[in-house]
Every structure is written in C-alpha cells, then in structure tokens.
C-alpha cells in the first residue's frame, strides 16, 4: 500500500514540474537569505568580540553560512531536474541519481532542523561568555595607556550608551573596581589616600559611575559621583531616584539583543525547512510519476505518483532488514575466511 498515491496525466505532470521549478527558485532565494543571516550574525559577534574576551564561539553563524550555500546548490540542482523532467530524453540522465539525491535532501532537512535548534540553544553559552567578558572589560576600563587594552574604555562607553545599560548586573558593579586611572589621581591629596587605605588591595574605589551610565531622559543633570550619598546633592534620594542612570545591567541587555536575533534566525530557518520539505516531496512525486508510466513509449500516458512505495512501517522494516543483511554479509565473509584459514592450516 503506497503512501499518499495520486494519479497523474500529462497535464498534471507538466503543472507539477512547473510549479516545483518555481518553488525551487524561491528555495534558492531562501538559501541566500539563510546565508546572509549567518553572515550578519557573524559580523555582529565580531563587532563586540572585545566585550566577550575574543572568546565567543562562531560555530552557529558558520553553520548557517554553510547550510545556506548548500541549500543554494541543492535547490539549483533540483530546479534543473524539474526543468529537464518535461523532456523525457533529458530526464533519462537524471534517473539514476534521483534516489540518492532525494536521500541527500532528507538528510539536509534534518541538518536544517538541528541548525534551528542550535540557534535557540546558543543563548546559554553566550550568556556565560558575556558575563566573563564584561567583568574583564570593566576591569580594564582604566587601562587606556596599555597597548591592546587602550580602546576598552571607548568600547564600554559606546556600548553602555547604545544599549542603555550600566555595569555587568547593575550600576553597583562600578563601585567594586577602580575605573579611574592612577595617572589622574593626586596621591598627595588626603581624599585619595583615605580611599586607597580603606581597602586591602589599595584600589581607588568610589560610589561613582562613568558618564556613559547617564540617562538623558532624567529631568535633572546627571549625578555620577557620590551616588549613594543623599546629602551630597540637593533634593536627592538614591533609593527613589529611577531616571538618573540606567538601571539595567549590560549582560541582560546584550543577551536579550543577541537572543532576539537568534530567535528570529531560528524561526526563519524552521520556515526554510518547511519549504525544503515541500520541494522534496514534490520532487519525489515527479520521480515516481515519471517512472510508472503505463505505456513507457507514450509520454502522454497516465501514471501514478507516491511518497513511499510501501507504508512507513514496511519501509522502515525494509531498511532495517537491508542493514542487517549488509551486516550479516560482512560476518559471513569473515566466517568463510576463518574456515578457509582453518582448512588451510
């Protein structure tokens, strides 16, 4: 009992081939789309690789690029096959490789589904990479005279302004590190000496944040220094003040930015998978309808098309039997060799 059998006459076959050819063109464009999304994602990761300690994994964008290119090739092939299927003389040369080609397409679809799953899952390792990278970034904020780290301050400032965030988890992260370089500290002044002697490592710690944490929507000029000291500023209560500096942490902001991007890409890849599955089924129909012509000489005769020759269960048992036979074949060969060896000796 074949799976989803459909009767085909010449007109229906021609229409199927034409529609399938058009769908293959759309699939090629979808493949280009996947490729460009992989490229875009890769560029976005490279842009902020400084904040991730240059440690980020480019695995997912590379897979997307590869899958996009492969999709273009497979679909171009499929389109050519459809185009030739209307001419029986041209179609003959494709007949032999059509079954392996369809199996390739099946594996490719599985690969697409795996890629989509990875897009959704990549969020978790990215979060860890970002947490580590941002912590180090903030540590090197003051090192504007150290080669290799001199642009960290600018990168962090621009990132905080662009993503509207402050610090790693929140603004208090800036209180725990020295973000003012020693070159700009007057070590003869009492205030500096007090702050340095107040902690074990001799760091200049203060309850202040860089200017890039300031929120432009605040109605009052930005309060960056002495944030936790209510009496230092007129009419100020840091427990109720909400608009002065950005409340969000940069790790959250970046993870949600990249997470949103990856979710969109994952959904698009799933839709491309559906399209690929549809064209694969269409090509199977073309294949079967052209190989079951009632009268092989007459191209206008009727034929039947199906997805699987037997039902799913039977096809599965067939495949298992074939694999067992292959495995037994190897064993029998080895057994015969052993006997041969035994008889010889």
């Amino acid at each position, binding site marked *: 009992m074949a799976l989803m059998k459909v009767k085909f006459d010449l007109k229906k076959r021609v229409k199927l081939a034409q529609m399938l050819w058009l769908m293959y063109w759309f699939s090629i464009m979808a493949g280009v789309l996947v490729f460009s999304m992989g490229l875009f994602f890769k560029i976005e990761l490279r842009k902020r690789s400084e904040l991730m300690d240059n440690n980020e994994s480019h695995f997912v964008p590379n897979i997307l690029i590869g899958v996009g290119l492969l999709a273009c090739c497979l679909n171009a092939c499929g389109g050519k096959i459809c185009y030739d299927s209307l001419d029986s003389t041209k179609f003959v040369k494709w007949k032999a490789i059509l079954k392996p080609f369809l199996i390739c397409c099946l594996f490719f679809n599985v690969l697409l589904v795996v890629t989509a799953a990875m897009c959704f899952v990549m969020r978790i390792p990215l979060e860890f990479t970002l947490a580590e990278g941002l912590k180090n970034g903030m540590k090197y904020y003051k090192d*504007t*005279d150290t080669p290799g780290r*001199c642009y960290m*301050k*600018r990168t962090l*400032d*621009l990132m905080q*302004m662009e993503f509207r965030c402050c610090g790693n988890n929140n603004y208090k992260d800036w209180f725990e590190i020295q*973000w*003012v*370089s020693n*070159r*700009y*500290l*007057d070590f003869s*002044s009492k205030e500096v000496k007090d702050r340095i002697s107040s902690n074990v490592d001799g760091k200049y710690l203060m309850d202040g944040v*860089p*200017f*890039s944490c*300031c929120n*432009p*929507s*605040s*109605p*009052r*000029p*930005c309060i*960056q220094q002495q944030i936790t000291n209510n009496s230092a*500023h*007129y*009419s100020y209560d840091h427990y109720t003040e909400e608009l002065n500096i950005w409340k969000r942490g940069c790790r959250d902001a970046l993870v949600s930015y990249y997470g949103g991007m990856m979710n969109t890409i994952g959904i698009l890849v799933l839709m491309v998978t559906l399209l690929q599955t549809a064209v694969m089924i269409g090509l199977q129909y073309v294949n079967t309808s052209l190989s079951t012509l009632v009268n092989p000489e007459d191209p206008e005769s009727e034929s039947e098309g199906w997805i699987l020759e037997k039902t799913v269960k039977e096809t599965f048992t067939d495949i298992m039997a074939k694999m067992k036979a292959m495995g037994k074949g190897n064993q029998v060969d080895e057994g015969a060799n052993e006997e041969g060896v035994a008889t010889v000796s």
Partner: protein
Amino acid sequence: MVLLKIKFPFQKRVRLAQGLWLLSWVAMFSGAITFAMGVFLKTELHRRSEVMHSMDIHIVPNLLMAVGLASVGINICAGKVCQDSLDPSRFPRWKTFLPPFFCFSVFLTSLLLVAMILSFALQPSLEESLKIGLKNGIRFYKDTDTPGRCFQKETIDRLQIEFQCCGNTNYRDWFEVQWISNRYLDFTSKEVKDRVRSNVDGRYLLDGVPFSCCNPASPRPCIQYSLLDNYAHYNYEYQTEELNLYNRGCRQALVNYYMGLMNTIGPCVLFDFLLQMTILVSLRYLQTAMEGVIGQENVEIETEGYILEKGVKETLLETKEKMKKLLQFAQVGDASATTPETQPEEEKPATA
C-alpha cells in the same frame, strides 16, 4: 528653418520606438527612486525639526517627491505612446494630447534642476534656522517641568551624543546659559548664592557642561565641571586638553550632515533629469516622424523628425500670439465692447 532635423527610415523608427519603450521603464524606476529619496530627506529633516526654527529647506524634498511621482506618470504615458506608434492606426489619437504633454513634462523635469540649485542656495537659510533652533534648545534645556518644553533636555542630550557635538558653536555656549533647573539648586548654600549674585539676571552660571558633551574616546574619565579651572583637577590643562569633550558645535555638525545627504542625492537627481530629458527629446522625434506617416498608405516610407518646426525665435513669437489671442477672447467674453479692428492686425504679422 527646422530645428535639428533627422531622417527616419522605417527600421530606424521602429528601433527608436522600441528603445524608447525600454528607456521609459528605466526612467519610471528612476522616478520612483527620486520619490523615495525625497521621502527619506524629508524624514531626516523632520526628525530634527525641534532644533530648526524655519521650514524653508523642506521645499527641496517636497520638489523631489512631487517630480518623482509625476515622472512615473509621464514615463507610463511615454511608454504607451511608444507602443501605439508601432501601429499607425492607433497613433493619431495622441495628436492633440502630445504638445501640451511636452510642455508640462519639460516644466516638471526642469524642477529637478531647480531642486538641486535650491539645495545649495538654501544652505545659509538652514544654518540660520539651526542657529536659532539650537539657541532656544539650550536655553530651555533646564525646563523639564514646563509643558511643551519638557523634552528639550532629552532631545539636546541625544543630539549631542549622536552627532558628537557640544553646544551651538562650541562648548562655551553652555557657560552663558543656566542649564540646571532651580528645583535642584540649594539656595541656602554660599556657592549658589555667589554665582547667582555674580550676574545681572540672577542666573546660576557655571563653567560646566552636561554629560552628553563627554567624548568616549578620551583616555581619562570625563571632566564636566570647573572646566576653566586647571587646579580643580589633577594633571589637567584646559588650554591643551582636546579629547575630553566634543570640540565641534552642533550647528556645524548638523549642517555638514544635511549637506552630505544632499550631495549624495545630487548625482542621482542629475541622472534622473538627464534620463528624462533624453526620453522627452526622443519622444518628440518619434512624434514628428510618425506625423509624416499618418494618412499615408505605405507605412514604410522614410520621414523626417525634428524638435521644432520653425526656429526657436519664430516658435516663441507664435506662442506669444496664441496666448494673446486666448487672453483677448477671454476679455471679449467679459467686456461688452468688442475690438474687431485689432484682430486683422494680429493676424497679419503671423502670416508674414
């Protein structure tokens, strides 16, 4: 004396019609792109309309949008005329429509040149408008509690951050204005009282700037306050310090940005103008060449095409006479008295 006469055998006519049909499709897209660029320019000008005092400069994108739309229509017509010119039975119906169509199209296409010229000519007006707008913006920076002005602070802050600029001409503009609202000043403190008394208007002026003037590329944390006091900060000299704040004024930054936009759009508009004029000239040749074919039995004869039947001067005189006649008929319709003796006089120079 005919202007720029060209002989057109049948094959040349057909090729002209086909080439022109294709070109009209290209020009249609070009017109759509001109429209899109006009929309883009208008959106960009509108985004910063809060710091602009007058809307004079908006005429440039308005012209681009109008001409872009009109040229789409013109080119569709031109394409239709080309298609019909290959069929001599269908071509005569365009006879009365084409002359006013040409005048109208030439006028609209020349508006593109006008738009380009205006984009340069209105630069002083744009600069003046920005000067006044930014001055007001800086003045009302502190009024975050006044309805209608409460977003000025956010607008100016975001503008300074995005365009990497500070103040109107430079950062010293902030020293002349009170940009901290009275709500956040402690009037019992000595420092505030001193500053308020130090000037006639009783304003709290200081040598400080808002945080949005800070330059992220500076190697040291941003110095916003006591900018002119070298002793207030360790290892600081305001005369040589260059990276601490943005050096540019926002007026200059915005003018450069808009001029840059218009210089980018300029070549595309010029290309569209040249394309459109080429199409109109070719269409005129096609029309005049086809006129020789109308009424003839053999459509494959050779005809002549020209731009103007008579010389430029004579055509202008004729047009003037026609306009006078039209006006006179209009007057005759209004007034009760007629002037029949003037009409034969008008006709005599035309026939001479």
